[in-house]
């Protein structure tokens, strides 16, 4: 595992099921991946994974929490009809329009392959094809009669999409769940970068659970850690032909640093200064309120935590073809590692308001 290439690591990560609330398996994988690079790795009662990496011996080291979420959006079985077709609901934000014709895996007693059926155009009126199909009108076909389905599948079983990683041109990759397994890859890359640097901090790399349903893993993990500084790594919107220019980011200009009330002013400035000092290309995203990431929970935990947010531009977020520039994973890790290395013993003097 030790010198696994980033692309292979991400390919492995996205292949393991881990819908919000059901992260046990992906947590095990990540825990194993963290072990070679951390002094300690532990998992809590909700399967948040904590990898601790520390280098300083000073009394006054900042405790830094860096979070990326490992849960993915998916579906859940709500019913099995008399013909053996499976009805379902969503876990996290799933656009029903991505579902027709999708291949899925149902995690019952065993893993069952299925397809979300799409009525062929021959059998539809033209006007019907103009309206999006609702999730409650869709079913999953597993090719078995009802009694066999019921032996294997129960209401409440989770369903993940089948969408293995594909390499596109220009160093771009496409897969499901790059939100935020790519962020988890950044955590691992940062550990590797830190192995080459001296730093003075007690760093906890946290793969959080249940971000997609309300940043829940971040709430409880931050409470457990009581960090001095918090960093969230998540994805942000990459530029797409049909999206407004001023709300999306180029795919080849580096990671995105967020600015706004959810982020600590001085700490964010330090991150930006670090990027400039090391010639790391980056962009600025302005967020007017609590962000849709773990940062929103981290900042207001207990006595408050100065927080920053780094985003990887991602096209087609929350589809099975999320698309990312691999180089940004490396750049984000370089930025983070240098940022951590820049924290000295006087960290709490410049950090106060």
């Amino acid at each position, binding site marked *: 595992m030790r010198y696994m290439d980033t692309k292979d690591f991400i390919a492995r990560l996205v292949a393991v099921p881990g819908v919000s*609330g059901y992260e046990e398996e992906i947590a095990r994988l990540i825990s194993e991946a963290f072990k070679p690079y951390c002094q300690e790795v532990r998992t809590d*009662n909700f399967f948040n994974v904590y990898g601790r990496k520390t280098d300083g011996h000073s009394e006054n080291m900042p405790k830094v929490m860096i979070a990326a979420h490992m849960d993915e959006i998916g579906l859940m079985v709500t019913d099995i009809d008399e013909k053996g077709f499976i009805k379902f609901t969503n876990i996290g934000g799933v656009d029903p329009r991505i579902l027709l014709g999708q291949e899925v895996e149902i995690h019952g007693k065993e893993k069952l392959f299925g397809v979300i059926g799409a009525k062929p155009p021959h059998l539809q009126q033209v006007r019907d094809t103009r309206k999006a199909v609702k999730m409650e009108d869709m079913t999953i076909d597993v090719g078995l009669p009802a009694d066999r389905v019921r032996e294997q599948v129960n*209401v409440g079983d989770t369903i993940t999409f089948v969408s293995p990683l594909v390499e596109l041109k220009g160093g771009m990759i496409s897969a499901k769940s790059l939100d935020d397994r790519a962020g988890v890859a950044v955590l691992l890359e940062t550990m590797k970068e830190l192995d080459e640097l001296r730093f003075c901090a007690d760093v906890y790399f946290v793969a959080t659970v249940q971000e997609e349903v309300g940043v829940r893993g971040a*709430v409880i993990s931050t409470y457990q850690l009581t960090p001095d500084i918090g960093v969230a790594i998540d994805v942000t919107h990459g530029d797409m032909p049909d999206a407004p220019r001023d709300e999306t980011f180029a795919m080849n200009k580096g990671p995105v640093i967020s600015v706004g009330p959810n982020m600590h002013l001085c700490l964010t400035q330090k991150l930006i200064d670090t990027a400039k000092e090391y010639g790391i290309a980056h962009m600025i995203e302005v967020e007017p309120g609590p962000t849709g990431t773990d940062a929103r929970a981290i900042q207001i935990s207990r006595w408050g935590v100065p927080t920053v947010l780094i985003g990887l531009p991602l096209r087609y977020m929350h589809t099975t073809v999320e698309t990312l520039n691999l180089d940004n994973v490396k750049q984000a890790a370089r930025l983070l590692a240098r940022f951590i290395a820049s924290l000295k013993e006087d960290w709490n003097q410049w950090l106060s308001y």
Partner: protein
Amino acid sequence: MKELLKKLTEAYGPSGNEEVIRDIIRDEIKDYVDEIRVDTLGNLIAVKKGNGVKVMLAAHMDQIGFMVTHIDDNGFLRFTRIGGISVGNSINRRVVFKNGVTGVVSYDGDVDRLSDIKLDKMYIDIGASNREEAEKEVAIGDVAVYYSPFTENNGKYVSMAMDDRVGCALLIETARRLKSSPHEIYFVFTVQEELGVRGAKTSAYALNPDIGIAVDVTGTGDTPKARPMAVKLGGGPAIKVKDALVLAHPRVKELMVKRAKELGIPYQMEILDAGGTDAGAIHLTREGIPSGVLSIPCRYVHSDSEMVDAGDIENGVKLMLKILEGEIDIF
């Protein structure tokens, strides 16, 4: 159970005004527990001491209601909602205040279609001729609840406030029948759940249990042309998988299923798309508390006539007892 449920559902206790129902519950449970106290927000916390796992059971005492915001010159009362009061469930219903004053809820006459009615176009009529007369009986801030008697038919109980007096009844009955348990069990009757699971948040913080199980109602999918939902009345207590506020902890859910199977009772797995319970607040407290929900299937939730099945309640009590009497070895 029927008598207890009747007493509890007919009692006054809208969110923020739980004094009456709290006293009744305290009276019902006091002989079966070691200590009782009431906290800052008004949660009733009763404990049966033990050395094992610290278990927090939660059922909310509060019900939805109508709060008076204004009394007009002609003695009509304007109101706002306490919890999930809907227009459809309120039109021309009878309501009653804590002091016994009754009234009728209706809407402004200049409305064309029922679907246009919003809460601020509705009023309560207590039959007063003018403001002075009305002010003798009610004040701004007073809260009314549905006026709705408890009835039974075909083994189904119907009343207002089954949500969540049925949960309270289940906990009281559990405390009464519990012979022995290795665990330390907190029976928490929470306040203000209908306003956003508020009481559960602070009581869970204070107790910091090892595991939390909320007992509340859930909807069903077994009425004509109902929105699809696998739960039905009479299908047994429901073990929650997910709702809007919580994904039941897999270990807690598995434990509940295991005990239900050992008992041989009917049970159902429950997914509720909209709506949440006290478990939503409990599980995110402090360092995170593995939590689940034991749900009682209920038709017509948040109306004045919520319907539950007697067998589901009895099996729910049995399931809870089995969980408490056995090992709780989730980690």
